[in-house]
């Protein structure tokens, strides 16, 4: 069943709205204008309303027994909605207008990733998903995940406020650039100078067979692209140099490393531009490239961009943020809110697994990664009573928790194989 046009249109408006909200939030962060204090959450709220209505329409269309979170596309849309609502609540309840500036890009990315998922239809439920537990289990997951994400955004702001070590931030930013390039480019781009394109194209939100006649449904072509391998090499070498300079120590080294990182970042942006250019060019003749890799590149560009901005203007950014204790306190509160939900996901998941598969715990990757997340936050909560584990260290654990949550949610669907991977089909 194709989703109703209204539902699709509302989701598109919501996406645009989140983009607008992000802009206003960043404006508020930078300039603290009175109008943006009201406009930012208003636009965010309106977008979330459109988003929620779109989901509700989808639910109505699919029927009561088929909630709109049963495949990868739907769950991305649903979890993005949960994140938007929770961050709005935190924003309004604690009068913290800074969360939105970081959460709106995440919500937008979630929807962007959903847009890339090939199957968007209201698919009928496979037998194992026909259970009341899909309502409870997956619905609760949104509370836990978005709670942890908002909490870690606050913890990150706490780190920004109290000052991050330039050395480690610069080093890890440089390594992030390097790692992303290695992941996206692989040996083909670096060593052979070839970029992989497939005969299947991604057009109009759908994977479609290449109109050019060919025997295999998916056939890969390695295309030699001018400048692309060179840009990969230049960016990586610059990032490696920046990583080295930051690790080597010394204020003057850090400053040089920072400049090198900035040049590397410019080169990285040029690389993304070139890639978009190639994809546009080849898509016009019916060839596609992996959209997820481009998505990852852009997302990482935003993250590294902020890190570099912090390396140059850290003190100014920190001055704009509220008191560190307040950030820490709200982060702790939101974690306290999310932790019981995380526990409940594990328990309801176990009950469901017991009913469906005859074992309540089977060491399936989804179960174990969820356990890792639970352990990280259990550690965070115990750290609160342990001297030396509060403040910065707690914030770092919370930020690690962010990656763990993302990995628990998407890693199992996109990377690891397991029983839950049916969500990716």
């Amino acid at each position, binding site marked *: 069943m194709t989703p109703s046009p209204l539902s699709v249109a509302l989701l598109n408006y919501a996406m645009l709205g989140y983009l607008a909200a992000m802009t206003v939030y960043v404006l508020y962060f930078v300039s603290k204008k009175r109008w943006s204090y009201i406009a930012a959450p208003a636009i965010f709220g309106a977008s979330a309303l459109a988003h929620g209505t779109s989901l509700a329409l989808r639910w109505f269309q699919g029927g009561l027994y088929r909630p709109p979170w049963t495949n990868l596309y739907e769950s991305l849309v649903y979890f993005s909605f949960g994140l938007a609502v929770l961050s709005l609540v935190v924003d309004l309840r604690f009068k913290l207008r800074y969360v939105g500036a970081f959460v709106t890009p995440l919500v937008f990315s979630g929807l962007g990733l959903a847009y890339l998922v090939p199957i968007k239809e209201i698919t009928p439920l496979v037998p194992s998903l026909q259970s009341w537990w899909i309502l409870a289990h997956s619905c609760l997951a949104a509370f836990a995940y978005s709670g942890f994400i908002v909490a870690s955004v606050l913890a990150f702001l706490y780190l920004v406020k109290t000052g991050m070590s330039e050395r480690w931030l610069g080093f890890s930013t440089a390594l992030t650039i390097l790692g992303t390039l290695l992941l996206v480019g692989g040996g083909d781009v670096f060593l052979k100078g070839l970029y992989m394109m497939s005969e299947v194209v991604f057009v109009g939100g759908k994977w479609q067979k290449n109109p050019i006649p060919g025997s295999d449904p998916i056939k890969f072509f390695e295309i030699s692209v001018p400048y692309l391998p060179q840009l990969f090499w230049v960016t990586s070498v610059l990032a490696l140099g920046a990583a080295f300079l930051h690790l080597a120590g010394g204020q003057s080294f850090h400053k040089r490393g920072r400049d090198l990182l900035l040049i590397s970042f410019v080169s990285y942006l040029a690389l993304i531009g070139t890639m978009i250019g190639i994809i546009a060019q080849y898509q016009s003749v019916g060839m596609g490239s992996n959209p997820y890799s481009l998505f990852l590149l852009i997302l990482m560009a935003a993250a590294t961009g902020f890190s570099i901005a912090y390396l140059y203007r850290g003190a100014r950014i920190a001055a704009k943020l509220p008191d560190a204790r307040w950030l820490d306190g709200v982060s702790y509160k939101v974690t306290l809110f999310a932790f019981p939900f995380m526990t409940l996901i594990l328990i309801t998941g176990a009950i469901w697994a017991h009913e469906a598969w005859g074992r309540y715990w089977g060491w399936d990757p989804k179960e174990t990664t969820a356990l*890792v997340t639970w352990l*990280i936050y259990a550690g965070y909560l115990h750290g609160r009573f342990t001297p030396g584990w509060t403040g910065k260290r707690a914030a770092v654990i919370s930020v690690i928790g962010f990656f763990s949550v993302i990995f628990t949610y998407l890693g199992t669907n996109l990377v690891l194989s397991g029983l839950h991977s049916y969500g990716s089909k």
Partner: protein
Amino acid sequence: MKFLDQIAERLWSFFSSLKLALGIFITLAVSTLAGSIVLQRPIAEPGQLERVYSATTLHWLDLFGLLDVFHSWWYVLQLALLALTLTVVSIDMWPRFRARIRSFRSVLEATGEGELPEMHARLNHAQDPRSLGFKIAGLVGKRFRRPVVTEKDGKVHVAAQSAKYAHLGVYVIHTGIVLILIGGMITGMKGFEGMIQLSPGEKATAYFDRKIEGKRVPLGFEIRCLGARMEKYPDGAPKAYFSDLEIVDGGKVVASKTIKVNDPLSYQGIYFYQATFGQTAANERTSIALEVQDPKTKRSKVLATDFNKVETLPNGKGTLEVVDYAQNIPLDVEGHRKDLGEAVKIKLSENGETPRVIWLFKNFPNFDAEMRKGVYNLVFKNFVYDYDTVPVTGLQVARNPGINVTWFGAALLMAGLLSTFLIPHRRLWIVVSKDEVLVAAASHRHPESFGRKVKKLVKEISAELLSQKDPKKVAWSEKLSGGFHDPVPA
């Protein structure tokens, strides 16, 4: 003896430290992550490990025990250490918790500015302390159960507390986790998982163990499959699988249920789950048509026969029997392959001769007439293979003897978490002296929300009892929270 005591003390303080608990959290998280990323042997499909990892990688992963992390001794040891630490920490911190529960004093002795709890307020009054104190107690009584009023040294003390046992939530949580681990241990030692495959009409008295391949374990009763079917969506995707099951114990039907995915049948703690569904061939049958031609009379007769069935030739002039069938007989002709097509192998005996074996080819009807020149010419006309499909349902059989312990532990864990995070131990003291009302409050969790409530109480006292016009002007000291709110831009 002193030496042993010292060792015991060292051990105790080692296991009761929160740092050890944090260390176990970290190592557990790291090893669980390793087990999530590396494919695990128990859940990998056959051949999957070899496909994904090279032989060298596999060798190293095996060497470090990373292919079955969750059943390795070091993983189980970490879980055991976690349970031990939880227990020791819980015992160790009991005196402190008991003190917190019992520490409430209804008379606030220390009223100096530095000695008061974080939240407090002072109000001036010019009334009789005694009657004012009782009026205040009335107001407090609306919010707290049983406020205590004490008169001491000319001062009236009103004190109240709520949910002092909230401190015990941690114990409930820890008990829950230990019970979950114990439940898992019981299931791991006494439970089992296995498979049974049945078609309608079939029955089984044993299952195949999942851990040891090929091991059949008796159930102790009989399970019968009366029917199995599937439902499809209009587009052909599977919608539901059903199996009608019946359990026979001691010659009597003791349980019966139509199970489907997410809805198992249980008997004596053994659960039967709808796990797989497929089709299998049954009633396989073949029929072979041969033509027997009499070269003299040119009369022919079609013989419908089957494997291993001895047929008599017309007029009793011998016997034949089909012994084999081939879909194709390939022939090598000077390096070129030539396919002869379908053929049957026949054991033939004419006129009482010793039986001989000949091949007949469907594509070459004159082959026998030209090659053998026997009494009859045999022609292979047709070969039919037919079968019925019957559904076969795969049942997962499992027994989880520790499951109820685990569920109870999980319930405790949830209850403990909610009570710990949501129910605060709140304490309130009001001291009415000759010209001053002192309100002090403390809450071990979410102090700001208690602060709002106490502030309201203070306003009520000042407005109703002290008739002060502007209760907003009450000096309220609150160090724990507030004051950090992001200022609204002007």
